């Protein structure tokens, strides 16, 4: 199974760039994931003020530049990992050297999650791929 772990740092945007210590601790954690053969991909994201939000209302597109005042929390980074169960993914999330943050652990859709008529229309089949 493949999981995406979203990191929501609870910090102000002015403190967005992590310290050397925080990066070191996080690198150790990422290394542990890698050495366990579980890590498929990861990235840290630049602050929301560097990004934009593209929203659709009744099909109408609206682009808003960051930061996003209305957002309760924003994503700071993500991991994609391979795990054998949701519990295992949660156990890995618990080992993250977090201080004030929230990690959301979400299973990635698998083919079995869809009825046959939907499956037929899926170009790329996520769930059949091991390694996640």
């Amino acid at each position, binding site marked *: 199974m493949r999981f995406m772990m979203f990191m929501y740092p609870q910090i102000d945007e002015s403190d967005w760039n992590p310290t050397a210590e925080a990066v070191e601790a996080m690198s150790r954690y990422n290394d542990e994931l890698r050495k366990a*053969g579980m890590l498929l991909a990861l990235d840290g994201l630049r602050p929301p003020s560097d990004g934009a939000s593209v929203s659709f209302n009744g099909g109408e597109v609206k682009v808003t530049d960051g930061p996003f005042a209305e957002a309760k929390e924003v994503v700071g980074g993500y991991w994609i990992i391979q795990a054998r169960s949701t519990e295992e993914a949660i*156990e*890995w999330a618990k080992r993250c050297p977090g201080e004030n943050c929230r990690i959301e652990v979400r299973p990635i859709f698998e083919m079995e999650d869809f009825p046959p008529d939907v499956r037929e229309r899926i170009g*790329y*089949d*996520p769930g059949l*791929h*091991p*390694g*996640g």
Partner: protein
Amino acid sequence: MAATADARAAVEAVWRIESARLVAGLARLVRDVGLAEDLAQDALLVALERWPRDGVPDNPGAWLMATAKNRAIDLARRASTYERKREEVAHELGIMLAMDRADFAAEADDEVGDDLLALMFTCCHPALSTEARVALTLRLLGGLTTAEIARAFLVGEPTVAQRLTRAKKTLREVRADFEVPVGSALRARLPDVLEVVYLIFNEGYAASSGERWVRTELCEEALRLGRILAELAPAEPEAHGLIALLEIQASRLGARLGPDGEPILLLDQDRSRWDPLLIVRGVAALKRAEELPAPLGPYGLQAAIAACHGRALEAEDTDWVRIAALYEALGAIAPSPIVELNRAVAVGMAFGPEVGLALLERVATEPALRDYHLLPSVRGDLLARLGREEEAAVEFRRAAELTANESERSLLLRRAGDAEG
């Protein structure tokens, strides 16, 4: 009760993460993987009893190690009150002395890595049969239960249990060193370890039988082991070559079967169903293999071939000239009629059906290919492209007779019909 089930699932999740390191660390101390596994299992039982009640400790790995070590000391103390062979007592004293060493959790990363690698080599010891190596690897490095291994290989649970018991007994009898071989010994034994990972992957990849989730699980486990191996033996091109091959092959898992489970040939697959993340990972691993001073080995070359396919967005974009050259290189270091057959296909695509056919005829008399349906199937394809339709039809019919796969048979018969047109 749901809460108990949840707690149990949490313990099992920790176990899945920690068991290999735990068994490896204990095996280094007691020099016996069977005993190490027993000690680790004992620690798991204690965890299953206590964690649901007291909560999961902060460092569950270190907790399990400490518990297993205490258990070892208890055993040694109790045992020493009976008459014992001198050797065994000395052996257990070794355990107790080792207890004084640095705490497991504080151990250097390198040491944990060495233990894991030593465990891999021990599970794939030359004294063991291939079946035993596979079962032991899945059990001790994958943390799979006997029942899970039995399901994966469609054999009875007692068969697997017996296989594991015998394997551990054999390791004891041959006094298998719990060590990572060095130098030429490493190079000599690494292929055994790589082969076991490859076999586990193929068992999962084979579309022939077994429940789908078990097959997926096996592929995932092989990928995980392959990635760990590449981390632990970074100077070995074949460790990177193998994981590169597996990642790229796994990228096609979603595309290689039709709606009724019938296999779809590589060139006919819907490439939008190939997993781009795994292709990228495979290509990156291949690059690491290529950057090492030693030339690519058989896995690396197969990965390079797989990468040629992986890079082509459409079947027509395939770099057949490069694939033909890679098959030639593969045939030079790992000669086999199958490689030559594949090379004939690639050459036929790169330089025209006539050249491909000439190459094919050179291996056509190989006994290994006598009843292999792909030989007449490839020949039929080359002949059809040369406009020799009647000869092609004969070949497709012969291939249809030889294949065990129903949907492939109907495809071949259809091609025979088309050729006769």
